[in-house]
C-alpha cells in the first residue's frame, strides 16, 4: 500500500482516510478474521506533540475534523477514546502548540473537533491525527483534503489491542 497515491486526489474521490481503510482491508490477509487495523501513514507523526489537551475547539474554529474509532476484528465502536489532532491552519504552523488539541469519541465511536481552516503546507492541504493512549497500538494518520477549499476532513481509526 502506497500512501503517496493519495496525491492523485482528482482521481480518488474518496477521502484519504477512508481509502486507507478500504485498501488495507482489501489487501490484508487478516480480512477473513474481521476488520483489519489501520496502519500508520507515512509522515503521520510529523510535528506530533504528546499529550495535547482535550479542548472544546482548537482556536477560532470554522473547520471540522471528524471520524470514527473502531476495534479491529469485530468493528465495535470504541467509546471515550482520545484522538489528538493538529495541522497547519490559518492560525498557526504544525509546530505551534496552539495548533494542537484532542477530543474523545462518543457512544458511537465518533469524534468531531472544530478547528481553524487547514491551509496547504509542505505541498498538500493535510491534517494529522494520533491515537496513542496505550490501550491499543499507536496509530498516526495524515489525511489529505481533496480540495484546499474544503471545510472538513475525515479520518477513521481501526485499533488493535496493544
Amino acid at each position: 500500500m502506497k500512501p503517496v497515491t493519495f496525491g492523485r486526489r482528482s482521481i480518488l474521490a474518496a477521502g484519504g482516510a477512508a481509502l486507507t481503510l478500504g485498501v488495507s482491508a482489501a489487501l490484508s490477509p487478516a480480512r477473513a478474521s474481521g476488520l483489519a487495523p489501520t496502519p500508520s501513514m507515512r509522515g503521520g507523526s510529523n510535528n506530533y506533540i504528546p499529550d495535547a489537551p482535550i479542548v472544546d475547539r482548537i482556536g477560532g474554529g470554522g473547520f471540522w475534523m471528524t471520524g470514527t474509532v473502531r476495534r479491529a476484528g469485530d468493528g465495535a465502536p470504541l467509546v471515550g477514546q482520545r484522538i489528538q489532532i493538529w495541522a497547519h491552519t490559518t492560525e498557526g504552523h504544525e509546530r505551534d502548540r496552539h495548533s494542537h488539541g484532542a477530543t474523545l469519541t462518543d457512544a458511537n465511536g465518533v469524534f468531531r473537533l472544530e478547528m481553524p481552516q487547514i491551509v496547504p503546507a509542505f505541498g498538500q492541504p493535510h491534517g494529522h491525527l494520533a491515537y496513542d493512549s496505550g490501550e491499543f497500538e499507536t496509530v498516526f494518520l495524515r489525511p489529505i483534503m481533496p480540495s484546499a477549499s474544503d471545510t472538513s476532513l475525515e479520518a477513521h481509526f481501526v485499533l488493535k489491542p496493544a
Partner: protein
Amino acid sequence: MARARAVIVWTALFLVIAIPIAAAAFSPLLAWRQPIYIAAGLSGIAAFALLVLQPLLATGALPGLNGLRGRSVHRWVGAALVATVCFHVGGLWITSPPDVVDALLFASPTPFSAWGVIAMWAVFASALLAVLRRKLRPRNWRVIHLVLAVLIAGGTIIHAVLIEGTMEPASKLLLCAVVALATTKAVLDTRVWSRGRARARRGTPGPSN
C-alpha cells in the same frame, strides 16, 4: 536587427523569470506562513527560475553572452543555484524538521519530495564536478554534466508541478515549459556524441583524449 533581437530575447527572459516569482510573492498562502517558510519557498522558486538561464548560457544562446562569457556567467549562476537550493532546504528544515528529514530519506508521504531531493543531489554533483572538471576527460565531463542537467531540470519540473503551494498555476506551467524547452534544445545542440564537433566547438585545445 541584432539589437532588436537582443531586446526581445532579454525582455522575454526577464518576464519568464520575474512573473512566476512575482505571482508567488502575492500568493494568499503567505498570510499564514512565517517569514522563514516564505523565504524558503521563494528561494526554491528562484532556483527553478535560474534553470531557464543555465542551458541558454551554456550554449551561448543569449545575445551578448556567447562563448566564454556565456560559460563564465553559467558558472556564477550555477553557484547561485547551489546557494538558493541550500537556502530552500535549510529554510524548510527550520520550518518543519521531520518533513525535511522524511524527504531526504526518501520516506516522505508526498511524491514531489523525492524529485526535489534527486534534483538537489544532481545540483550538488554538478557543482562538485564543475570544480573538478579539469581532472575529467572533456567528453566525459560533458556527458556527465548533461545527464545531471537533465535530472535537475526534469526533477525540478515534476517537483514543482506536483506541489500545491505558493506558485500561481499558469505561471508555474509557463516556467516548466520554458525550462523543458531550453534544456532540450541545449542537449540537442551540444551533441556530445560527436567528438570532433565537440572539440571544435570548445575552440580551445583541451587535453588529448
